[in-house]
C-alpha cells in the first residue's frame, strides 16, 4: 500500500499550545486495530491530536495510512481500540451507540468521496434527510433545507432527482446535506476525489466559506492544491502522525509532497 521510507515518527508536539477551555477535539494515545476472525490489523498508533473550534484541517498521507480510519473515529462512525477521545471536553469512550448517533445527528456531518446520495430521491429530500433524525422543529425544516440548497448554488435544481445531476452538483448536494444541520464540525473525506478540477475548486470554495462562517472543517485529501485551502496540515504515515503544522499551508503542502 505505502511505498515510502519507514521513518521513525515521533508524536509531534501539539500545535496551538495550551488553551484554558477544552479543545473541540482531543485524542490521547489513540490506537485503532481492525479485527477479522482473531487477525489483528493495527491501523492507527498513538495518535495525539488537538483541534480547536473554527480550524480548517487537512489530513494528508499515502493511501492506506489510516486517514479515513482516523476521520471515522473522530466523526463517531467508529470507535477506538485503545486510548481516549474527548469531544468538547467530554470523554466519549463510555457513550452507547444511540449517544453517538445523536452526536452525528446534531454536532457533526460528513461529506464522502462517493457522494452517497439516496437514489431516486430529489435534491430536496436528500438534503432534508439529516433533519429527520435530529431535533430541528418540523416548521423550520423547509426553510433550512432550501437555504442549504441555495448556499451551494443549486436552488434551480431543488426538485431534480439525484441521478439527474453531474458529479460536481451531486457533491454540492452532499455538502448541502452536511451543512443543513448547522454542525460544529464537517468531515470531508476526499470530497474532490471524484471531481474534475473546476468542480473540485467550486466545492473547496464552498468549504472554505463554511469555515469562514465558523464551521470547523476536517478534510482528507491527496491533492496539494486542495490541502492549500486549509490552515493546518496533518501528515499521517503508517498510522502515525508525521507532521502537524499550522499557517503557510502552501509551503507545508509542498513539503508534504516532497516527503512522499
Amino acid at each position, binding site marked *: 500500500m505505502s511505498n515510502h521510507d519507514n521513518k521513525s515518527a515521533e508524536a509531534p508536539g501539539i500545535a496551538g499550545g495550551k488553551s484554558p477551555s477544552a479543545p473541540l477535539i482531543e485524542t490521547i494515545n489513540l490506537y485503532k486495530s481492525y479485527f477479522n476472525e482473531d487477525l489483528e490489523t493495527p491501523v492507527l498508533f498513538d495518535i495525539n491530536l488537538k483541534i480547536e473550534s473554527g480550524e480548517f484541517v487537512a489530513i494528508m498521507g499515502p493511501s492506506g495510512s489510516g486517514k479515513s480510519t482516523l476521520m471515522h473515529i473522530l466523526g463517531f*462512525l467508529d470507535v477506538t481500540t485503545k486510548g481516549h477521545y474527548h469531544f468538547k471536553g467530554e470523554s466519549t469512550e463510555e457513550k452507547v451507540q444511540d449517544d453517538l*448517533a445523536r452526536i*452525528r445527528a446534531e454536532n457533526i456531518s460528513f461529506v464522502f468521496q462517493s457522494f452517497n446520495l439516496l*437514489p431516486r*430521491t430529489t435534491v430536496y429530500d436528500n438534503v432534508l434527510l439529516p433533519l*429527520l433524525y435530529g431535533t430541528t422543529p418540523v416548521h423550520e425544516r423547509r426553510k433550512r433545507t432550501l437555504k442549504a440548497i441555495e448556499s451551494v448554488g443549486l436552488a434551480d435544481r431543488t426538485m431534480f432527482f439525484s441521478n439527474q445531476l453531474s458529479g460536481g452538483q451531486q457533491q454540492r448536494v452532499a455538502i448541502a446535506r452536511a451543512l443543513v444541520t448547522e454542525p460544529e464540525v464537517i468531515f470531508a473525506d476526499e470530497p474532490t476525489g471524484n471531481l474534475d478540477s473546476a468542480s473540485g475548486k467550486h466545492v473547496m470554495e464552498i468549504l472554505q466559506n463554511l469555515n469562514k462562517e465558523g464551521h470547523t472543517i476536517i478534510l482528507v485529501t491527496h491533492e496539494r492544491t486542495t490541502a492549500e485551502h486549509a490552515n493546518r496540515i496533518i501528515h499521517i504515515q503508517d498510522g502515525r502522525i508525521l507532521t502537524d503544522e499550522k499557517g503557510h499551508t502552501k509551503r507545508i503542502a509542498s513539503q508534504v509532497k516532497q516527503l512522499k
Partner: protein
Amino acid sequence: MLTRDLVRTAMNGLTRNISRSVLTTLGIMIGVGSVVLMISMGASFQKYILDQVSSFSGGIFEIHAKGLQEFGKETQSISTDDLDALSRLSTVESVAPVIFVAGKVRYGTEEITPSIFGSTKEIFSNFSLTVEHGRALTDGDIKGGQDVAVLGSKSAEDLFPSEDPLGKRITIGTRKFTVVGTLKSFGSPLMGSMDSLIYVPISVAKAMTGKVRYVDYISLQAKGDLSLAEADIKSLLRQRHRIDNPEDDPKKDDFIARSFAQATGVISTVTLSITIFLGLIAGISLVVGGIGIMNIMLVSVTERTKEIGLRKAVGAKRRDILIQFLIEAVSLTLLGGLIGIAGGGVFGFILARLAAKFLGSFPFSLTPGSILLSIGMAVGTGLVFGIYPALRAAKLHPIEALRAD
C-alpha cells in the same frame, strides 16, 4: 425520529421499487384472501345450518329415556302418566309422545326400512311438518286405532316411484296400512333423514310393539320462556321419578331433556371448530406469504446497505432503522391483506351464490370481526417476518454499510 417521518421514509422506500413491492404482497394477498374465504365460508356454513335447524325448532323441547336409541325395546322411564302431568304444566303448550316402531315397509316390490314414529297429531306442528297431499294424522285416527300412515317425502318417493301413494295399502311388518297423506320435503340435505320418517297413530304403535305404559320420546312445545319450561319439565320429571338432583347434574337423571337451542349450541361449537381448522389451513399459505416478505426484505436490506449506512452517518439510531424496515414490511402485508380481504370476500360471495343454487339457500357471512381478525393477521405476519430483516438492517455498522457496493 417522528412517527410521521418514519412512515414517510418507509413509504419512500417502498415506492422506489413499486413493481417489486406489489409482487411481494401477492403472497400475502393469497394468504389473507384464503383466510378470509375460509372464515367467511365457515361462518356462512354455520349460519346455514343454524337457519335450517331453527326453522324447525323454535321453542321445541325433546325428552327421551336415557340409554335408549334402540328401536323396538321398551324403556321404562317416561310413562304415560308422566306425559299427562307434563301436558298439564302451564309452561307447556303441547306434548307429542312418540313410540318407535321397528319394521320393514313394503309396497309391491319396493321395500324400505325407515324410522317409524307412532305419535299424535301434535307431532306435525312440533316438527314443522307440512302436508303435501292428503292429510295429517287426526285425533280420530288415534282414538279409533286406524291403520293409516303419513309418509315423509323421501319414503313416499321410494315406495311409490311412479304411482300416487294416496289410498294405497302398504305393509309395515305384517300389518297393512292405508296411506292417507304425504309430507313436503324439508328441502335441505341437512334435514334429509326427517324426510324418510313414516308416521302412524300412537295407539296402533302401542298395539304393534306392546309398549303400553311407557313412551320412547316426547316432543314438547314450550309456552313462553324456554328456560322456565325447561326448569318446570325437569323438576316435574325428577319429582315423579323420585330423583334428588337440585344441582341439575344430568348424570343423575334417568332421562335426557334438552331444547333445540342447546342442540344448536352444539352445532355452533362444531362449525366453529371447523371454521378455525379451515382458517388454520389457510393460515399456512399466509406463512408462505410471510416467508416471501422476509425474503424480499432481506434482499432489500442488502441492496440498500449503503442507504442504511448513510442514514446512520447522518444520525439515524438503530431504532429508527429497525422501525423504518418494520413499517415497510407491515405496509406490504397490510396492503396485501386489504386486497386479500376484498378478493376473499368477493370470491366467498360468489361461492355462497353457487352453493345457494344447490342447497336452496346459502347465506353469505363476512363479519367485521373476521375482517378485523384478518387485518390483525396481516399486520402480525408483517411484524413476525419483518423483524429479522429489520434487525439485520439496524445492526449494520455505519462504515461497513457505507463501504458496501
